[in-house]
């Protein structure tokens, strides 16, 4: 984990709302037709986080949570309503052109590249657009295609490439100007397991070997868990968690306990205990079990644990074992964002 005090990218109290205008719509409350309706969608509501040099930051969230809007505000494609975004100390709104020299962006979808051209020609075209020219452009294009695994496809028209190969090319295009920051919006969406893994490995290699800072938004929890140094979970435009990946997993794994019993437990009695968030019945090969989620506060959790054990003892349950359940990112994500899904 890199030192997070080195804030290469910083987002402070970032806000963005969109206005939706509809004409001749039916009002769901009154059932009457309205000539015009204006609705505000609060896409991002006061998001704060920073990314250090050489760090991979994962931004997770359900559909419409505000991930892409955040990435677009970082790259200057969307103007924030409030707050600040800085890259290497430069305010994005004020020094947009300078910031764009430091940032490479892969936005959702694979149609970044020009399909009638080959990968090499695409890199030459976009290289020129990003101020890279001559021998440097040639050498870097070949090196990037070699690095990403498209060396043998460099002279094949893009329209003949697979989705994964196009996605790899999009990453090369984002990297052609050798940016210090890489913003990847859903880089593995729609890819097969092998392509997703290959892209993930390349991102890690790039960050570790070349010291790039990476912001990646993804739905793929396995990719995020393996790839990211730090994870932010965004829901309804608000950052609901932002911690180093291992700390996030650790925090949540402390909260779920499995009580192995001789018979099926009374869930209502356990659920009523203070500090207990939820109780589920589970059938395992060793017999029935009660899976109890407890509040994260250590003092409350401790009292709740004693209370669960006492309740089970009063009910004359045979307690065959207690274990702490290891959480994965997917279950944490679901716990934090369930209300919105």
């Amino acid at each position: 984990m890199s030192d997070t005090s080195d804030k290469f990218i910083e987002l402070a109290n970032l806000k963005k709302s969109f206005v939706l205008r509809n004409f001749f719509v039916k009002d769901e409350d009154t059932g009457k037709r309205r000539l015009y309706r204006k609705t505000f969608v609060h896409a991002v509501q006061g998001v704060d986080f920073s990314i250090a040099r050489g760090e991979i930051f994962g931004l997770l969230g359900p559909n419409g949570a505000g991930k892409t809007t955040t990435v677009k505000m970082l790259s200057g494609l969307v103007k924030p309503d409030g707050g600040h975004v800085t890259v290497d100390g430069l305010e994005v709104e004020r020094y947009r052109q300078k910031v764009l020299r430091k940032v490479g962006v892969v936005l959702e979808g694979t149609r970044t590249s020009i399909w009638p051209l080959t990968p090499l020609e695409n890199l030459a075209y976009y290289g020129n657009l990003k101020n890279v020219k001559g021998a440097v452009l040639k050498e870097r294009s070949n090196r990037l295609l070699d690095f990403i695994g498209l060396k043998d496809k460099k002279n094949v028209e893009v329209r003949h490439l697979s989705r994964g190969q196009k996605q790899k090319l999009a990453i090369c295009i984002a990297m052609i100007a050798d940016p210090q920051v890489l913003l990847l919006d859903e880089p593995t969406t729609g890819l097969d397991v092998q392509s997703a893994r290959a892209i993930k490995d390349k991102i890690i290699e790039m960050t570790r070997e070349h010291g790039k800072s990476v912001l990646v938004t993804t739905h793929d929890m396995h990719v995020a868990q393996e790839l990211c140094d730090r994870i932010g979970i965004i829901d309804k435009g608000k950052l609901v968690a932002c911690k180093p990946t291992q700390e996030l997993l650790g925090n949540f794994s402390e909260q779920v306990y499995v009580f192995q019993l001789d018979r099926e437990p009374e869930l209502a009695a356990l659920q009523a205990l203070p500090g207990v968030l939820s109780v589920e019945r589970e059938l395992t090969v060793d017999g029935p079990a009660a899976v109890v989620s407890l509040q994260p506060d250590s003092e409350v959790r401790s009292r709740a644990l004693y209370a669960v054990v006492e309740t089970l003892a009063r009910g004359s349950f045979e307690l065959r074992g207690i274990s702490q359940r290891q959480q994965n990112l997917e279950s944490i994500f679901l716990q934090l964002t369930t209300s919105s899904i």
Partner: protein
Amino acid sequence: MSFLLVMKAEIVQALIIMRRYWFRTIIGMVMGYGMLLVLIAGFMVSRKEVTDMAVGRFGDAESATNFVLGFIIGMFAFGIVGMFTQGIQGMASTGVLEQLCLSPHGLITNFLARSTVAGITTCLSSSFMVWLVTETVGGQLYFDGLALASVLVLTFINLLGFGFMMGGLVLVFKQVGQVAILIRMGLFALAIFAKEELLHKGWAMATFVHALPIADAAILLKWILISNQGREGDNMENYVSAFQHPSMFFLILSCVVWTGLGMTCFKLMENWSRAKGTLGTY
């Protein structure tokens, strides 16, 4: 420097696509040749039967030539403005526009370079076609090269300003792209029907014509290629420099106004599109 770099990228891209899709390129040229041949052949030669036909069709041979020239200028205007309107719409739906928006050169420089390449390509191919058709039918063209080149550049700048304004609108309101087809058709018609006589039909009409993009350019181009050119020993003694023509002043003024208006509008619309969160997307 930025502009030249982007222009180089655009030229290389255009040449690669032309070479790779050679069949489409050749078919396009053959079609262009055929179309121009039909339109020009009859009017560029002074064969009696053709002139008679033109007189019968258009009233006089000059009107016919006027129409043909207007058609070529109209095609040029149609192409340049279309690059901003349908072009932006197309690039937005493929995702290429987002990458252009992320270029540190800025969107204006990118579009300036793109349209310059498109303008030069159209000029060269149109000139080649005109020359080819003229040669085929055995006619000859004499014209003031410097004046023609200057007016062509000014015509391009004039269209660029209008194109930027339309392009800016398309950046925010993508549906404008469809309306723009009508506007492009209007420009096409304007290029065909713009005549010097319109400027002598009262101050209101003259002001209206001067205010429209391409109108002065079309009038001047037609004047250079029809009224102010002649066969050797014919009416060359009546030669007047195009730079002395009153439309030249209005063309330059139109260029300044439309370019300023277009670029300002494009920049404002770009910012508005960023605020709306729709920049680069369809």
